[in-house]
């Protein structure tokens, strides 16, 4: 394992065509052994970033090193120290799990005995021993992701890239994968660069989070620090009568700035904190607005995203605006 298996990115740019700046002047740094969560909506530039870092896409400008090797000029060296599980898993439905391990292990130069042993060990670690002899076409989404992770670990990489590793997984598979990623970082000292559009994933798993939107890094820090930067709790209210939504918005606006809320609700960041709750209830009562539900939220990474971009990350698409 390289002595310094961190990632350094300086002013990295990737332009598609003439004007689409998929990654736009991004600086970031990932410490050895750290889990870095790269958070952003679909189309924000997360995958483009990963493709550049794993040497599959040349940067348009800027510089990046992985474990000290330049991604644009030292591709083979970079590839020898990284493992990657890219989006969609890209497995061969007609091969078995074991055959995948054998092919990829062989291409990484492991001897026949070594890849048999290492393959079996990793397959067991990701809990696929029973399915290893079956064709991948019959695997569930979670099983494919786990096999993909095992494949990425075959040649004992120092840096691991995971592009949306849990997208589309059920909660159980998701937490199993989180546990394995956590173990890799804590016990084996593997640096993990992970992209996600799930706030919870970044929050639970990442030591530090970078938030990307329209190709630009809009915020970076530990999840705790980022949320602390927002400071204030938010109050989310759901009107009993959907027609009262505007009235409810007007009342809440007196107590703070708008915050991210579910579609049927309205939320504000309480300017003077949780103590205002009683005042809010009195104001709602005074204006005759009946609420079905009232909740206080500690700041979330979505609030950080909202504050930096004016939009909410939670929702169907990145054009959704927070009311």
């Amino acid at each position, binding site marked *: 394992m390289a002595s310094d298996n961190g990632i350094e990115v300086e002013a990295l740019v990737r332009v598609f065509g003439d004007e689409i700046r998929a990654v736009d002047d991004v600086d970031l740094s990932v410490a050895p052994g750290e889990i870095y969560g790269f958070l952003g909506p679909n189309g924000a530039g997360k995958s483009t970033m990963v493709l550049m870092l794993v040497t599959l896409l040349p940067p348009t400008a800027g510089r990046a090193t992985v474990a000290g090797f330049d991604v644009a000029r030292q591709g083979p060296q970079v590839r020898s120290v990284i493992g990657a599980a890219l989006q969609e898993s890209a497995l*061969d439905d007609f091969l078995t799990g074991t055959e995948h391990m054998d092919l990829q292990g062989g*291409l990484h130069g492991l001897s026949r005995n070594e890849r048999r042993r290492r393959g079996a060990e990793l397959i067991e670690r990701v809990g696929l021993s029973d399915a290893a002899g079956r064709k991948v076409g019959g695997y569930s989404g979670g099983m494919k992701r786990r096999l993909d992770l095992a494949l990425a670990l075959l040649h004992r990489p120092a840096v691991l890239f995971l592009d949306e590793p849990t997208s589309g997984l059920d909660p159980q598979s998701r937490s199993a994968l989180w546990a394995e990623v956590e173990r890799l970082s804590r016990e084996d000292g593997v640096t993990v660069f992970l992209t996600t559009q799930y706030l919870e994933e970044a929050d639970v798993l990442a030591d530090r989070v970078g938030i990307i939107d329209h190709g630009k890094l809009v915020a970076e820090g530990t999840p705790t620090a980022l949320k602390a930067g927002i400071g204030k709790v938010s109050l989310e209210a759901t009107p009993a009568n959907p027609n009262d939504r505007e009235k409810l918005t007007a009342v809440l606006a007196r107590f703070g700035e708008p915050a991210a809320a579910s579609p049927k609700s309205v939320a504000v960041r309480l300017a003077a904190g949780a103590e205002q709750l009683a005042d809010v209830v009195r104001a709602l009562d005074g204006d005759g607005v009946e609420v079905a539900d009232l909740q206080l939220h500690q700041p979330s990474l979505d609030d950080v995203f909202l504050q930096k971009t004016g939009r909410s990350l939670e929702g169907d698409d990145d054009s959704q605006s927070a009311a």
Partner: protein
Amino acid sequence: MSSASQLALISRRSVSRTFRQPVLVVPVILFPLILLAVNAAGLASVTELPGFPTDRYINFAIVVCFVQGALFAAITAGTELASDIQSGFADRLALTPARRWAVLAGATAGGASIAVFGSVIYLAIGVIFGVQFDTGALGALVLLALAIYTALAFAGIGAWLAVATGSPQAVQGVFPLLFVLLFLSTMNLPLDFIQKQWFRTIAEWNPLSYLIDGMRGLVIGGWDAATLLPAIAVATAIMFITFAGAARSLRRRVQRT
């Protein structure tokens, strides 16, 4: 790891996955034989034309099976490689130390292997139904070797299409065109017997005619360098041009640094 070992690993995967899909294998075996049976029933009387080179139609027609098998190889190899590009499997291989050419040639091995399998079956069926080789058993083996060589060359056509388009559907879309090209060759009649001038001109310039005539010469007429060498030359040219084109396009398709 040596390039040869990489090629062997990638080829093994391609052959395994191809033969695990009966839908890719069965048509390659059946289609040329069915077309042969239909033509044998309908066109057998051409052998009665004055000067027709043989009196047994199957002697004349059997080689078309090998060329068809090679065309199927082209399309299968191309479709498989394009699927790898589309699914991201090509990226998976690109992240290993595998060399580009090994990825390219290995991915076409499955398609080529079907043609090899098919060629052995066409030859066996031909012999069972009374095909007589004027060049004897050695000629039969040379025909088999030439058919396999042609299939490998045609796999390059598929590979180039695959890398250039990145789409299995686009590769399959070219299949009918290749078949039209086959029909506009000396497939059903010797060149001298083609009456329509435009047809004859196309058939005369059609590279597939050289392949068919070269293979056919081994069955009818005996050893003749004047038909055999052009066939080998055409297959070699197709192989070099298409694989070179594919390798060039692959550098653009998979921009590994």
